[in-house]
């Protein structure tokens, strides 16, 4: 929750709502780009962002992304985040 996790912007899903589809080591989820961009979002496709609870908070370069991913994996935090993303997505699909 507190440490941002790097992901790569795969596509802009909803420009009006500032939502992109972001790839986190194979786990895809929607991420809000409000805090990293004004105006057009298309240029951001392919770039790495540091994501906190579904919100991109910083654009980072690939070397920094890899370094951060390694550190998070060592701390066991990366897996925790991916699991939380998967469980949250599954929860939304459950019938109420």
């Amino acid at each position, binding site marked *: 929750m507190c440490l941002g996790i790097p992901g790569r912007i795969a596509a802009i899903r909803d420009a009006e709502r500032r939502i992109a589809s972001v790839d986190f080591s194979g786990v895809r989820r929607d991420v809000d780009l409000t805090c990293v961009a004004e105006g057009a979002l298309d240029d951001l496709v392919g770039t790495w962002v540091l994501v906190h609870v*579904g919100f991109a908070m910083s654009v980072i370069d690939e070397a920094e992304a890899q370094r951060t991913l390694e550190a998070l994996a060592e701390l066991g935090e990366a897996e925790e985040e991916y699991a939380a993303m998967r469980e949250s997505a599954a929860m939304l699909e459950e019938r109420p």
Partner: protein
Amino acid sequence: MKYIDEFRDPALAKNLFRRIESLVGPAGGTKEKPLQIMEICGGHTHAIFRYGLDKLVPAALEFVHGPGCPVCVLPMSRVDDCIEIAERENVIFCTFGDAMRVPGTRKSLMQAKAEGCDIRMVYSPLDALELARRNPDRDVVFFGLGFETTMPATAVTIRKAAADGQTNFSVFCNHILVPPPLRALLSDPQMRLDGFVGPGHVSMIIGTEPYRFIAEEFGKPLVVAGFEPLDLLQAIVMVLQQLAEGRAEIENQYARVVPANGNPHAMAAIEAVYEPRSSFDWRGLGEIDRSGVKIRPDYAAYDAEVKFCVGYGAGKAAGREPEGCRCGDVVKGLIKPPACPKFGGECVPERPLGALMVSSEGACAAYYQYGGTRREEAA
């Protein structure tokens, strides 16, 4: 026991340890009276234990584990408020998984869920808002928790809910700020800290300016650091250099990610949605002036405290901590976790009594998991 060859660049790590070794004396540290450096962020606490940095640095240097784990400083009374909301008819209560096991005075959210409350773990406040959209006849409440890193996320979600007119969505706001407890700790006469390692990702949002008072009013150095172990070692070298040279400044080891002025978009969202509370209760530290935020009246329709009349909204006094629990003294750096009479016996990660045992970023859980013996004692 950890070894230097576990580091990404062992030669660089070795070099940094050598510099720490040579700087500790000139910086004023002795084995009898070690220098105390506080790492504020729970992520740093976790990294220090994971890599055994506390055992690899000289005995004349001591880490004090600061209040930077939002789960750990959450008072029991606020957990009670969560449960009070979750027990209301028609409510779906959404929380980050980290908060599920935090004990309240009656029970944890985990227990409340087992007893039939509709409590869901979400990864993002956006998922809670989506749940509200899909369940128009239910009241969806999101447990807003965390420092300045998660605060913008909740703020943007509230603005989206307002734009959509999603009136069955609200936030129980427990967001707290990093700088105010540092002022409170520095003002405590029992305190004997020599310097700080500042949080990386919080600073990415707020920048380095909000720490200036630490250097200017209290004469202590602070160095913002990344959470990779080499970042931490580098930051410690920078703190020791300042102490050795008699300087007290705010420096930034993590400039590759942390801009001096933070993230202006995120700060604008924070400013638009929240206002400071006159004070907020911190577990183990008590009420601290202007240390938490509440939702501005403009967004009162999305404020669960108003909507359900709980917490500060109900004018309730703070709850007491469990008998014998010394989380507060650990957070202040006055004792090490094993000195608490509950540590490892009545209080273990599977059955936490105190908050510092709940999260892997809490000092007690880290001590329990990785052990806390110094290298000399272990040798």
